[in-house]
């Protein structure tokens, strides 16, 4: 087991290193950040001073080595626009993204599992058709459509804060997170409902369910205790991976709701060609994704010895 974890951890580090290298190279395609100020050219002396300030006067490989060194000490450098430490920007936005991700996951599990179970148990009924049709619909709708619709029609009403709102308006996090959380959850909830319905139908045909019924257990116990628990396995896998992606920041949703998470941070940095932030957020996203899949793999290996033997 220890050897397996070591091997997977080494792979994860390799993935992180390669991703860092690629994004570092990719951001140089953005061009020189100090050549223009708005739509005006910047005098060469100032350009040179700015490049020296941000360490861009050295060759790219040297810059990369320096960056890696700083990264190991938790230093993501300073951003090009306001010279703020990027680690501070991350520290301010990561908790918001994590909160949003967890709320979204909870919403999608509740809605998805409930809809899937109902559809499977009442197969071919009106409820089954309703679930099948709505899930098809939601899987097909891009997330920005739902986001924009909610911002235009729901935000500003009742407990849902207005978008945009003055920065002086203080909104508790659980209110702020509702609409973006729901937007993120709705499409994944549709996936989960389908997964749940499928695996539930399979399980309901299994012998042990017939045994349970034959023992005279109530239908409620059969569904709730025996069938549902086994059908949840594919859902748990899907949710784990989905959580890994959400922890890395939901760029579109956070931007539409102007939600102060890493996704919104990244989208603004891209518009401003603010390379240090872009690099840092990408590394963070890759890190969370790799970490989540590492945890899932280890859990699997723990549950199923066949995996760690390979």
């Amino acid at each position: 087991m220890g050897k397996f974890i070591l091997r997977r951890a080494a792979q994860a580090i390799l993935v992180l290193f390669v991703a860092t290298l690629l994004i570092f190279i990719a951001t140089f395609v953005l061009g020189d950040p100090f050549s223009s100020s708005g739509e005006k050219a910047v005098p060469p002396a100032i350009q040179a001073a700015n490049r020296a300030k941000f360490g861009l006067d050295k060759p790219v490989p040297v810059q990369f080595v320096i960056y890696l060194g700083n990264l190991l000490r938790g230093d993501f450098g300073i951003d090009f626009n306001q010279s703020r430490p990027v680690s501070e920007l991350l520290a301010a936005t990561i908790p918001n993204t994590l909160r949003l991700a967890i709320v979204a996951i909870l919403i999608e599990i509740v809605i998805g599992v409930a809809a899937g179970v109902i559809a499977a148990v009442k197969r071919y009924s009106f409820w089954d058709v309703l679930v099948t049709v709505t899930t098809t619909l939601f899987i097909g709708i891009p997330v920005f459509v739902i986001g924009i619709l909610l911002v235009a029609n729901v935000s500003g009403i009742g407990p849902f804060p207005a978008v945009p709102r003055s920065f002086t308006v203080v909104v508790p996090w659980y209110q702020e997170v509702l609409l973006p959380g729901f937007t993120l959850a709705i499409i994944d909830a549709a996936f989960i409902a389908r997964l749940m319905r499928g695996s539930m139908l399979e399980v309901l045909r299994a012998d042990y369910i017939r045994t349970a019924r034959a023992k005279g257990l109530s239908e409620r116990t059969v569904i709730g205790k025996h069938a549902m628990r086994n059908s949840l396995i594919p859902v748990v896998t899907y949710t784990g991976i989905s959580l890994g992606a959400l922890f890395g920041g939901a760029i579109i949703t956070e931007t539409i709701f102007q939600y102060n998470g890493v996704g919104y941070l990244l989208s603004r940095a891209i518009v401003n060609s603010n390379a240090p932030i872009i690099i840092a957020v990408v590394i963070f996203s890759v890190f969370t994704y790799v970490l989540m899949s590492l945890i899932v793999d280890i859990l699997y290996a723990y549950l199923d010895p066949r995996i760690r033997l390979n």
Partner: protein
Amino acid sequence: MTRSRAGRSAVLLLATASLTLAGCAQQSNTGTSGGDSTQASVGYPETADLPDVAGKPGGTFRLGINEPTAIDPYNAQESEGLLVTKALFTGLVDVKPDGTVIPGVADKWTPNADCTQWAFDLKQGTTFSNGEPVDAAAFKRGWTRSVVKTAASDVAYHLGEVKGFDELQAGTAQDFTGVDATNPNQLKVTLTKADCEFVLHTITAPASPVPTVAGAADNKTFNDLPIGNGPFKMDGPWQHDKGIKLVRNDTYGAGPKANLDSVEITITPSANGSQIETDGFNNGTFDWARMPVPVLAQERAANEPKNQWISKKTAGINYLLVEVTKAPLDKADARKAISEAIDRNAIAQGVFQGSQVPATALVPASFKGAYQPGVCTACKYDPADAKKLAASAGLTPGTTVTFQFNTGSGHEEWTAAVKQQLETNLGLKVTYSGVPFKDLLKNEQQPTATGIYRAAWGADYPTAGNFLAPLLSTAGIGAATANDVAQGDNRGRYSNPQFDQLLAKAAATPDQAARDDLYKQAEKIAIGDDLGLIPLWARQQFRLANTAKFGNLKMDFFENPTLGSITLK
């Protein structure tokens, strides 16, 4: 993404269709009427300022801006940063949008006979909001702090004419030798060249005074919580990406105190900031908003009847930068052919929905003394004449012309229309491409650059000279030889000794009317005769303003609301 692309293609299709129609209509009456008579009908009319009302203290004014580069005066640059900096700091003088200089901390400014030395008499007893005096030393401190090499300010060049600037920028000196603050009540400035408009340079952010607590330019505390001498002061530090709150400075001494209790500035993302401002205005979050082009017509219809719509021609120009030293556009007639082959009216109607006004001069209308409508004789649509000019200049059908624009800023549609018109009217082969702005700039700068480039210019100071000198003077090229990269703003490399002489003469002419006259002569040469660049649209700005709640709400030279005079009604 997909949706906006689809939307864009729809707009493009519509634009092309209406262009074709407008083109036909235009061609049929070209023979009888000139371009001027039709131009009055294009463009949203400017709105008149509402009558002033008596001020009374109170109220919170709310608006959205993009995250500024800096609000510390040493590096405040774009309109957003200047909005905050100008509210926090009052410089020597201030300006009205038409270039009229009004007193700031200085109540008198006098150049010597040849405009190489300036004396600014300061109002006595004014202070920063922390109680430190605003004297000549405070200005010298601020100027030096902005210009020293270690500040690496993007905007220090505003003080580039002051003696000692080069040494400070090179890092070989720490003292600004051209600025004399020995008399606390008078600031004496020595320039390295004659400039009778130097006083205008002192409206810029890096020319603000700073208190001793400012320290050096890299003082993070002061960068985010500047202490100034303006009508407002900070209420807590700048919350990056969230907002900035200002409150009235009750010890303000350089002019009338502000009426507003506070100003709440919410930071919006730059990608769609203007749409968010519009949404915020409509949901009651903001009292002032910019708008993206596609909603202009709709917002105008809804808000103009309520007097909540502000439309002003401002100090800027959209133009085509032409590489004038290289074939195929090295002859004036070739450039005029290009200009006359572009149907500005049709594009203004078809793409800009009538919101843009075709330009017939480089110097904008806001400078009444120097404005010469029609000085650009080739700024009309005349495809027949264009063909003749093209033939005489060797711009034969099939000639390849490069045309580049920058992507992501809404230039896709109208540049496509221009390309289409050049191909249809002159038979040119237009190599048309969109690149990020930084690449566009780099491409224009190269000694091998040819063809035309989409460009725009906004004035740093309200004077015609700030259009003519940077964009068309030889010094504005910023390249030692034709084989060097052009580091200045005249990247088309237009150069005419006669034009340069007129500008030099204008800079050394103290009398405003005489100076304007020289500017007119210079523009006549560079635009009328040589067409060193091709003017397209005059810059015009639109705002939504909550005039139901606030009075004295106008747009200043920097295209921001006049925070210092706004009052509750």
